[in-house]
């Protein structure tokens, strides 16, 4: 695993070097990305919706991967935190909207309530995650997957039971975001475009925060635990405590994603707590590549856009899960690096082609592309044949 990361780091370094030499500074890349984000907002309404959902699922998967890819704990119950965020938000909007309007005036009340709901959602998630995490991190590997699955389904059955009329049972809680008025300008928070910008304004800093966590000493300890819990313990790391803290941080960010989902879907649904929702970040992360920071983001993109692509074919639409099942099996068996690993390989290859072009013009570049492509195809054909041979 570590050698693979070094190779990739070198490639990123080479790419960055090229980019800087040609004037493509980090700032320009970031600006280009932001411009792209703004442009998406002016696309067709459905595309805006889809991209908003992508950002939420990306945050969900990224937070999940703090625990899976970085600490080595596979949780099959993160839906409980997703639902915790949704329900915290939905309950505040349902019960506190009139009171907030009394205090701050009806103009900005919806926005203030949304903010309160977000805080309530994350607090609710922390309230669940701190004890659940404390209990769960005592176990490892398959046992950890099972106990998180169990806690997740426990939360699901509590929501279904509608305790004290709080969760409204199987119907869930309808979320209405209302109309905000600031300085005489009215805008609907639930408007797809407005909500898109709101989501981006929450998701981007959250992604940055997770990046800071991963690159901090805290994240380094996580990776040390993933590679070898015993060695980490020998170096003086309190492994259980550290896993607990990672669990809580991961859950909190999943809660943020859940808060945003309640506003997007206009409902806090018990489905958000079902274990099939816990499977979404697993699928996205594995397909995207758990060993890369951006893997879950790429995976969430693949997840939502492949699903959308499939939905264009009515005959296949109802069976989109089939494709994700097959992708999951294929990726785990043959391509553990996932889609993010594939993209980095493609990037390295394009740079090589570029190098050939610099040396010998178009002909050299085409020749190099053809040679390396045939070599790659030959190589991937080769091992699978020998593998089949060994199996016999």
């Amino acid at each position, binding site marked *: 695993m570590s050698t693979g990361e070094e190779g990739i780091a070198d490639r990123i370094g080479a790419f960055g070097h090229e980019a800087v030499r040609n004037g493509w500074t980090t700032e320009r890349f970031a600006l280009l990305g932001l411009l792209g984000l703004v442009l998406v907002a002016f696309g067709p309404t459905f595309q805006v919706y889809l991209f908003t959902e992508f950002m939420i699922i990306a945050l969900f998967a990224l937070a999940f991967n703090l625990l899976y890819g970085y600490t080595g704990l596979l949780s099959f119950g993160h839906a409980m935190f997703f639902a915790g965020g949704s329900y915290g938000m939905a309950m505040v909007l349902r019960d506190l909207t009139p009171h907030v309007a009394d205090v701050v005036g009806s103009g900005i009340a919806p926005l203030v309530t949304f903010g309160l709901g977000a805080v309530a959602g994350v607090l609710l998630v922390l309230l669940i995650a701190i004890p659940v995490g404390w209990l769960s991190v*005592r176990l490892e590997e398959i046992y950890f997957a099972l106990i998180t699955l169990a806690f997740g389904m426990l939360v699901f059955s509590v929501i279904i039971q509608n305790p004290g009329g709080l969760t409204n049972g199987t119907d869930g809680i309808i979320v209405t975001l209302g109309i905000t008025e600031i300085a005489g300008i009215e805008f609907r928070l639930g408007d797809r475009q407005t909500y898109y910008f709101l989501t981006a304004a929450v998701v981007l800093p959250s992604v940055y925060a997770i990046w800071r966590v991963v690159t901090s000493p805290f994240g380094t300890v996580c990776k040390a635990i993933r590679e070898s819990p015993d060695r980490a313990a020998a170096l003086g790391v309190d492994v259980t405590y550290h896993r607990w803290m990672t669990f809580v941080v991961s859950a909190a960010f999943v809660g943020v994603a859940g808060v945003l989902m309640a506003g997007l879907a206009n409902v806090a649904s018990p489905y958000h707590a079902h274990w099939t929702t816990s499977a979404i970040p697993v699928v996205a992360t594995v397909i995207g590549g758990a060993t890369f920071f951006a893997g879950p983001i790429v995976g969430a993109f693949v997840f939502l856009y492949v699903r959308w692509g499939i939905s264009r074919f009515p005959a296949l639409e109802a069976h989109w899960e089939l494709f994700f099942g097959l992708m999951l099996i294929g990726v785990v068996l043959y391509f553990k690096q996932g889609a993010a690993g594939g993209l980095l390989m493609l990037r390295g290859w394009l740079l090589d082609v570029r190098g050939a072009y610099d040396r010998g013009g178009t002909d050299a570049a085409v020749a190099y592309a053809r040679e390396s492509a045939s070599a790659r195809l030959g190589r991937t054909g080769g091992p699978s044949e020998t593998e089949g041979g060994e199996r016999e």
Partner: protein
Amino acid sequence: MDLSVILWFVSIADIVIGLSLGSRLFLIAVGLSLIFGVLGVLNFAHGAFYMIGAYVALAVTNHLIDNFWLAVVAGALAVGVVGVLIEVGTIRPLYERAEGELDQLIVTFGFVLVIHEVVRFVWGSQPYSMDAPASLAFSVSIAGSTFSAYRLFVIGAAFVVMAGLWLFVTKTYFGALVRGTSSDREMASMLGVDVPRLYTAVFFLGSFLAGLGGALSAPLQSTSPALGDQVIIDAFIIVVIGGLGSMFGAFVGAMLVGLMQAIGPQFIAAGHIAIPFVAMVIVLLFRPEGLFGGIGE
């Protein structure tokens, strides 16, 4: 608490219902536990296997031959074959991989999605029901409650399967190979056991039992694509309570969970869901290896 106090809360009918729920859960949990005990693979698709067993039995009685017992055998065999194909094709390459356990879990989860969609594609989303065999289509009265004879038959079948498996594992040569390989794979391999073939055989047996459970349960429940999801969670709970890898643990766990599901709702709302979960969490925290450990016990 003495017995009469318990019986004040719980009727004989609840206990029979609980045992019959436990019996069908046992048939799926024991295969799951057997496969985990020997191969170290937690098969997420085991609930989907159970569901295939029910659907194949339905298809055989509806389209091929109207014989319940042949349909049950066909369902169990079909699932056994599916299990072998999956084990040889996709799980075997992962045994040697470091941290392969989570990869195996994810691969078998992939098959949950695949099987779910294939079943929906072939049979649609509507629930099916199946008639109990004519020879058992009568009622039996116990302590003032009436039960279908078939329900009692399934409870008996679970006890027979448990006894058969116990004899098979402890008394036969193949059983000795299974026990030996489960406790030390490398040593068994050095002593000349063909480990990959044994693994495939055990996977076949575990899958066969899941298919048998599904086919036998078809007259007691409605068969729909959601069936696999429901039972796999129950089966996970059972094997954790009983001990992953222990057949006897799967039996005790299944009967306990069946009883909790039948009796639980009388104590708290949704007790049939909550009580088994709470029991599982308690077992995981205080005795992660389960109430019983080891394959031969």
